[in-house]
């Protein structure tokens, strides 16, 4: 009984103390969707921010990654935080046009972000204003298994990768050795969109690809057919049952040497290495050039933080955005997570060949695409990715697929 009483007393005292502490501090509510490793990195970043601003208390509410996509629509209208995670490009357009995100152009202006975050600025801009701050992106490209190349007797890609014709010719040799030349797992659809994006960027260029995802080009256009004609060259050498497996299952095929090449994002490196691959066996190359002379554009999906229109503490939220955009914060966060900082004054770990290669590939790129499902509106993205998957299974259906996509295009972009 006595113990219980002291317990209650201590509890009350603790309550009073936190109460008084909260009275001094201004609260900044932040809703996010981090997996464990990025979450730890963000908690470290928040600790640094709070150390620099002792009068601000950042309260992070972390959501499950998939659930967040639904939750954000509810909390933006019902119980708005001061900060929220989201994505760049067309993905943020619905929230911007419906007035759910605040214009943060002044943060960009005041901190010279237009120059420091130049590579990501275009994808943060709608109607000439910036609607959030990017803090990380990662490169896409071809990851390959050096052992599989050796097993099939194929020459390893050189410093500048291989030419497209060589890549296609290699596929023939992989086939003879019983190895899938290209692997992918399209159960969740999006991995095939990465292949399409690269073929499109390399065949017709960045501007054309952006026009396509913006709905300005008909899907029945000859140039779309050109992209699929290139795809048809590697379609027979792609893992047969890709529609039944997830991207991690396809990663296992690459790790086991049953597949040679995988068009993927850099986040997959962790999975490859968990499967036993090392910097010795895992290789990375930029997707080969197809049409000679087209400026090289890359895929770099960008993650961002925004201020919702219903935020209570806009002043401190802007301070936080400026902090997240700083080169020091971005260097530290991305080093912990193994991704690339968007601030060009940041640095990456020189001992990670994939990060170095990615930083090199993105910083010298002519332009950056976000990814098919972020560049195209949601409905078009869904229909498109289903079409790509169907093409990979049944290339003979191409005309019907393009007819269907064209019908969707006319409906979506009215």
């Amino acid at each position, binding site marked *: 009984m006595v113990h219980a009483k002291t317990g209650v007393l201590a509890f009350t005292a603790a309550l009073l103390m936190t109460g008084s502490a909260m009275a001094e501090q201004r609260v900044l509510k932040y809703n996010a969707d981090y997996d464990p490793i990025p979450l730890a990195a963000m908690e470290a970043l928040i600790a640094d921010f709070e150390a620099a601003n002792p009068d601000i208390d950042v309260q992070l509410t972390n959501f499950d990654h998939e659930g967040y996509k639904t939750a954000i*629509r509810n909390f*933006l209208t019902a119980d708005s935080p001061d900060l929220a995670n989201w994505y760049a490009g067309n993905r943020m357009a619905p929230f911007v*046009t419906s007035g759910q995100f605040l214009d943060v152009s002044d943060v960009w202006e005041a901190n010279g972000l237009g120059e420091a975050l130049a590579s990501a600025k275009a994808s943060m801009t709608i109607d000439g204003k910036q609607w959030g701050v990017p803090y990380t992106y990662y490169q896409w490209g071809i990851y390959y298994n050096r052992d599989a190349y050796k097993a099939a007797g194929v020459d390893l890609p050189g410093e500048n990768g291989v030419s497209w014709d060589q890549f296609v010719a290699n596929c023939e040799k992989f086939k003879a050795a019983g190895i899938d030349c290209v692997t992918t797992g399209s*159960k969740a659809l999006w991995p095939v969109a990465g292949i399409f994006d690269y073929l499109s960027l390399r065949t017709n260029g960045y501007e054309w690809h952006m026009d396509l995802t913006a709905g300005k080009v008909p899907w029945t256009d000859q140039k779309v057919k050109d992209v699929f004609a290139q795809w048809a060259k590697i379609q027979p050498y792609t893992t047969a049952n890709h*529609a039944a*497996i997830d991207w991690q299952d396809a990663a296992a095929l690459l790790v086991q040497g049953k597949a040679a090449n995988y068009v993927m994002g850099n986040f997959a490196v962790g999975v490859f290495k968990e499967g036993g691959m090392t910097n010795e066996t895992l290789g990375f190359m930029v997707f080969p050039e197809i049409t000679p002379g087209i400026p090289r554009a890359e895929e770099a999906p960008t993650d961002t933080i925004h201020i919702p229109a219903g935020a209570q503490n806009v002043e401190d939220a802007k301070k936080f955005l400026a902090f997240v955009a700083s080169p020091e914060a971005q260097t530290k966060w991305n080093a912990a997570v193994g991704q690339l900082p968007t601030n060009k004054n940041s640095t990456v770990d020189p001992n990670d060949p994939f990060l170095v290669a990615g930083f090199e590939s993105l910083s010298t790129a002519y332009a950056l695409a976000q990814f098919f499902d972020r560049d195209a509106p949601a*409905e078009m993205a869904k229909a498109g990715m289903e079409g790509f998957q169907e093409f990979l299974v049944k290339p003979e259906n191409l005309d019907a697929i393009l007819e269907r996509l064209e019908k969707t295009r006319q409906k979506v972009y009215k």
Partner: protein
Amino acid sequence: MSAYWKANQRRLAPWLFLAPGALMFLIYVLIPIAQSIWISFYDWDGMGEATWIGTANYVELVDDDAFYTSLKNNVIWLVLYMLALPVGLMIAIFLNQNVRGIRAYKSLFFFPFVISQVVVGLMFSWFYAPDFGLFYRLIEWATGTGIAVLADERFVTYGIIAAGLWPQIAYVMILYLTGLNNVAPDQVEAARLDGARGWRMLWYVILPQLKPATFIAVVVTVIGALRSFDLVSIMTDGGPYGSSRVLSFFMYEQALSEYGYRMGYGAAIAVVLFAIMMVFISGFIWKMWRDETER
């Protein structure tokens, strides 16, 4: 007041007792149905302004290939799900005997109905999985080339229905087992004296007595087939390229999924699904009403 109450007590009491239930039914069933129908005439992303577009959602639906795929799959589901009735009855008759440990066997047969549909879906997707799935390996061993059921548009719906039938058969079996307990032994005795055996016994003596159980089994099977959302979502997410969609999944995809948020279009699909269910529901209600009045 009290005089009025005294005079009309017997007339008012049933309504008072009905009131809580009726209120709930109104709030959670009738009003949402009306709202869905209302929303289906709008173009609305769930957040911004809703625009009245009349019947445009329905016009689009009639022109949408995905809608016909879903409708066709729903019909396949309805037809094949009915297999649960004969199979469930067979197992029930088989288990309806007095041997040692029969209760344990019965509970084992009932087991699939106890586990969640999500777990059933996961188990079957591993069963079908290319390279390591048992089913895939069996087919590979028998024919030389394996079939990835869930990646093949020709088989995917049947593959999912097979997964759904497993717990559904168990459910129907339990309904028939309780029904078999109520079969009058004297009638069976009398039929036996008259020389009825085997199929004739089953068809003319047992089945008529199982009529109430059959009715309930048909109802739950039809409803189970029409709301077949969870298995599709877990096993294929509607894929490959949308060929295993059913109406309920299509509705979710359009209205609530990552690439959706077309509330009006989703509501229009919901209305169509509701209309299909209404056909069955009115049929059931009509039958029940007829049975009640005949007595």
